[in-house]
């Protein structure tokens, strides 16, 4: 019996090692600029996803394609878009991508949220979220000249400072809204693959919409609204200094006091 147990143990270790050796390839398709903030954010997310992948057995690759090349694909695991509203709507509405997560990285267009497409996920804060945040702030500080940002290089809470410092170390510039969105999209996807152990687009989309509690390094575990908008706090910034976080303390509805709350 002892011997048998020993052999079983050896066998199990062997299995787990061979399972580790079999690296799962995860291909992401991207349409958008290949320099500047959003691109750097994507690269940061990709580097971090691959650090996790080293331990858990995944390799993430970003395929840069044109809009035409994307529409010629038969299928995709996940699609990342830093393009305009019309292109995003065309991809999300296309029948072959109906079960594929389509990420709107940087457009704040309210129309993309009110379209209520089941596969469209918007990472950056919508225009209406920013307006609502500003209104909450101005109600208490009517003289303020603050504006709203999704991210800021001086943000330190919720381990934001660690993210800011490793982004700056890698890219030599401060992380901004678009960089955060690119980073967050890839990390949302790597979190999904790690937890579902699946690269099936529909399984991933379902997890993203219904089960994820994402650590975006800006507070509570982030989830998506049925509008596809990622719930998140935003920052009031005046003279390049963070003066407040919205939703402001005591505002009813918490994170859902910002922007279109639901499609229902």
């Amino acid at each position, binding site marked *: 019996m002892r011997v048998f147990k020993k052999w079983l143990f050896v066998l199990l270790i062997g299995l787990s090692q061979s399972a580790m050796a079999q690296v799962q390839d995860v291909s992401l398709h991207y349409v958008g600029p290949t320099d500047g903030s959003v691109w750097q954010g994507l690269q940061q997310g990709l580097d*971090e996803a691959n*650090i*996790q992948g080293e*331990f*858990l057995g995944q390799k993430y690759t970003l395929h840069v394609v044109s809009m035409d090349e994307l529409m010629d694909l038969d299928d995709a695991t996940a699609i990342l878009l830093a393009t305009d509203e019309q292109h995003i709507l065309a991809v999300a509405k296309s029948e072959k991508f109906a079960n594929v997560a389509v990420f709107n990285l940087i457009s704040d267009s309210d129309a993309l949220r009110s379209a209520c497409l089941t596969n469209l996920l918007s990472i950056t804060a919508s225009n209406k979220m920013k307006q609502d945040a500003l209104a909450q702030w101005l109600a208490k500080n009517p003289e303020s000249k603050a504006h709203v940002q999704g991210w800021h290089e001086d943000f330190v809470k919720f*381990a934001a400072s*660690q*993210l800011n*410092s*490793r982004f700056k170390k890698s890219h030599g510039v401060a992380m901004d809204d678009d960089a955060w969105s690119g980073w967050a999209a890839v990390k949302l996807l790597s*979190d999904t693959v*790690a*937890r579902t152990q699946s690269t099936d687009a529909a399984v991933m989309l379902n997890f993203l919409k219904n089960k994820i*509690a*994402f*650590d975006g*390094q800006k507070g*509570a*575990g982030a989830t998506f609204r049925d509008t596809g908008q990622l719930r998140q706090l935003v920052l009031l910034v005046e003279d390049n200094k963070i003066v407040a976080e919205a939703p402001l303390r005591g505002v009813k509805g918490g994170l859902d006091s910002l922007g279109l709350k639901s499609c229902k």
Partner: protein
Amino acid sequence: MKLKQLILSTLVLVSASAWADPTYRLFVTNEKSNSVSVIDSRTGTLETTLKLGERPRGIGLSPDHKTLYVALSGDDAIGMVDVATLEILGKLKAGQDPETFAVHPNGNLYLSNEDDAKASVLNPATNEIIEEIRVGLEPEGVAVSPDGSIVLVTSESTNMVHVIDTAAHKVVANILVAARPRGLAFSHDGSRAYVSSEIGNEIAIIDTKTYAITKTASVDVPRSKPMAIKISPDDKTLYLTTGRAAKVVIMDAITLDIKSTADVGNRVWGAALSRDGSTLYTANGVSNTVSVVDTATSKSVMEIKVGEGPWGLVLDD
């Protein structure tokens, strides 16, 4: 058999004589005022405040309790203090941004280097980093198993517990847990490990033979952000600090059912448990105090003023 027992008891005697007498001092790192508060735990009075270096966070004792170690994140060093005389003994090099550490029974320090995605093994006798082990992003919590065979490290931004074999200094398993894992603890019998997840608001039990998660529970307390974990000497009770919930949550260590909660100061982070399990001490990062919790009644019986941003604490008892 008799001879074996004799040898064993002689060995215990010899090793016991190497231990220093307890000073009952409670040491607290104050991250923001760059100091260590020294409290007489028998009276709850502040004895003195030591200045070791910049941004002290992780804190621990050598196996013989003669030396206090303090991770000085701002100095990339470990500060040392003689526990009995409170003499400051200088610094050990500790790699970039050491956040916290655990002391192995053989005396080595296992450090998490937050900015560098690695764990370092420091031999304090030679002041040498004897190994660097790559782990996930933002490594934080470190715990050594009671028998010293494995070390666990959490990586906050890759959501994993890494299992390091201390003989080979290799990562032998990676366990995916809920978002932003922070604190770690072993049961005293070594059969179970516990991990807290700050953003996932969860606590998980890991079987230390299979490295499988055998149980998880969310922490049903408003504003809870799970942080430090302590296990009672009989392995039956778990104490969890919860950050801005300003409570210690007391759970059954097997079922993870909440038995009671104790109100403590705000933004409660580090914790220390007396050897007999009767008293729990917490570092309250925003209140700038240490709470003293009587574990029999689950009530805070005293709040002691310390420096700014108290982070971690250790008791020499």
